[in-house]
């Protein structure tokens, strides 16, 4: 009898519920099948984010030196003259220095073509006043000052007319105009995925952006071309740094660069997002250790909302990437839905510009924002991805790229 009772109890305990008969469970882990094909956390190449080249450092994107010791001596010697002329016209002195570097390699020297130290073609009347800067050869300090003053005046009144030279975009446009806006360079920028506005700022011009990054380095991109003679063909670009690259090296850019491996203060949104997010979906609320550290460092681990504190919130993730990278330590968090604080910051602070939300136009570090969600576009080994978190559901994770342009707008960091 006792054995029978035990048997019945066992059956009762082991009897499955009717629900199990009625339904095959399908759980909320729909992204488990995804994987990041190219992810290589140790091998990821650090690529500067948009809007920057080098920031006051004497190196190109790949670490190569820009200014020789001789260049630096000349810069130091000439700088007071650049500054005086630039101050007279309210423009950055670095603009004058760049023109000097590009045209006569910082020498106080008149070339034989009569266009002077800064090659002021327009001042010579398009060549009709070919004696404007002669004789050829070394010039006195007074003549150097005179020509520098003229260069500053033309920069302000002609090439820079209507431009805000306190912004990177304004300076890029200035250099593009100075070199002569060529349709071939606009087309070249568009073929590299730049927007029309960016193309018109000279992103496709080697004179402006040569050696700014891998794709604008003819050693890596044989299709990066340049017109080297008047009305000549497009041929493989030379290896002279673009004007804006040089300008940035002189500390003129408001951008950011120089990479490190841990993502902290590296000025690189792409690398920081890769470092903080899991390389695939399926981690629920469990943040990577790197993300936990970053949340603490940027002051969000003590933020009032419990999910933001652990990083399982879309706005907290993007804010952490911006703050921890050092790109924007003041990135506002949190609140997206209902035009919350983060939504308002991205759309109304003036620090972001709207860009087309489509593959080919997006750059690593761009934000995609709707009325209720925020996420970041990144690239992993040349493949576009989306890094994001979801409120109360999942921590920072990297997923596939998808088109959400019908309801999301894209924004790019412009700077303060």
């Amino acid at each position: 009898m006792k054995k029978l009772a035990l048997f019945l109890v066992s059956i009762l305990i082991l009897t499955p519920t009717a629900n199990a008969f009625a339904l095959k469970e399908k759980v909320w882990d729909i992204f488990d099948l995804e994987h990041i094909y190219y992810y290589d956390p140790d091998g990821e190449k650090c690529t500067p984010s948009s809007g920057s080249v080098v920031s006051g450092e004497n190196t190109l994107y790949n670490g190569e030196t820009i200014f020789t010791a001789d260049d630096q001596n000349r810069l130091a010697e000439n700088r007071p003259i650049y500054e005086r002329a630039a101050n007279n016209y309210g423009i950055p002195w670095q603009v004058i220095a760049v023109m000097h570097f590009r045209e006569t390699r910082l020498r106080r020297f008149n070339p034989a073509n009569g266009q002077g130290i800064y090659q002021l073609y327009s001042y010579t009347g398009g060549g009709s006043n070919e004696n404007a800067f002669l004789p050829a050869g070394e010039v006195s300090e007074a003549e150097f000052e005179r020509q520098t003053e003229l260069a500053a005046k033309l920069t302000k009144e002609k090439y820079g007319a209507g431009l805000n030279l306190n912004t990177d975009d304004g300076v890029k446009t200035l250099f593009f105009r100075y070199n002569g806006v060529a349709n071939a360079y606009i087309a070249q920028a568009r073929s590299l995925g730049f927007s029309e506005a960016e193309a018109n700022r000279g992103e496709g011009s080697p004179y402006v952006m040569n050696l700014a990054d891998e794709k604008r380095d003819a050693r890596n991109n044989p299709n990066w071309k340049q017109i080297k003679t008047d009305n000549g063909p497009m041929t493989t670009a030379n290896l002279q740094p673009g004007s804006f690259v040089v300008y940035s090296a002189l500390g003129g850019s408001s951008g950011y660069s120089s990479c490190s491996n841990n993502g902290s203060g590296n000025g690189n949104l792409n690398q920081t997002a890769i470092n903080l997010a899991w390389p695939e979906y399926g981690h629920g609320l469990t943040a990577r250790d790197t993300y936990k550290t970053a949340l603490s460092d940027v002051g969000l681990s003590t933020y009032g909302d419990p999910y933001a504190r652990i990083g399982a919130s879309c706005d907290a993730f993007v804010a952490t990437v911006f703050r921890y990278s050092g790109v924007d330590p003041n990135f506002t968090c949190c609140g997206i839905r209902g035009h919350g604080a983060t939504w308002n910051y991205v759309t109304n602070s003036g620090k972001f510009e709207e860009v087309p939300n489509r593959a080919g136009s997006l750059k690593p570090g761009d934000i995609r924002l709707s009325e209720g969600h925020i996420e970041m576009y990144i690239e992993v080994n040349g493949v576009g991805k989306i890094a994001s978190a979801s409120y109360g559901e999942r921590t920072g994770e990297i997923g596939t790229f998808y088109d959400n342009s019908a309801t999301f707008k894209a924004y790019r960091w412009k700077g303060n």
Partner: protein
Amino acid sequence: MTDTSLFRFNSNEKQKRIFRYSIISFIIIFLGIIIFFVVNTIINIDKTSEIRILVAPSDSTVTIDGNTYKTDSTIKIKPGTYNVKIEKPGFISYHGSIKANDSETSYLYEYLNEENENGTFYKDNEKENLIAQRISDLNADIFHQNYTGTDPIWNITPYYNYKEGLKITAEKENDNIIIKTYLLTCIDEDIPNLKQKALSYLEENKINLKNYTIKFSNC
């Protein structure tokens, strides 16, 4: 004088009787449970779909084909398409439909907006605002999943290789996926070589080219 022997049980007999009653009770309960499960199974046997519900405000009334459900719940239901109503006084009602597929979970994630455009319900009520935020994020994830599905093309695009002179993107048009390959050259002689590089990239990544429409363009 009372004959107490009539009321006195042999202790051994008493124990047997209690045990017998326990077994009978147990069998009755057990059979009852079995019958309940069997009946429940028969009733629910065709409810092979699931709907996950999350709605804000949390005291809204959610009705699916006339039946009322909680605003944060999961229900089992027969496969089919159902009419959904979400209502709360002072808020714009939601009227829609939801399709429940066999052995799958469908999602009813909605938050109601106030009738008064300047209303401050969500601003004043942090808990409700966070539920609405969660709903927004969940819907973004669902859109993402529905867009890409499990097609492998989304794992390898958009792809940029400026050294090779390639840019490859994928776009969804209705149920078709278009692969757009940009050959970064203005020189006609380079085109065949770059086309081959693009196709090699796709094939090396286990993309069955027959499943897609592939377009090429260049400078």
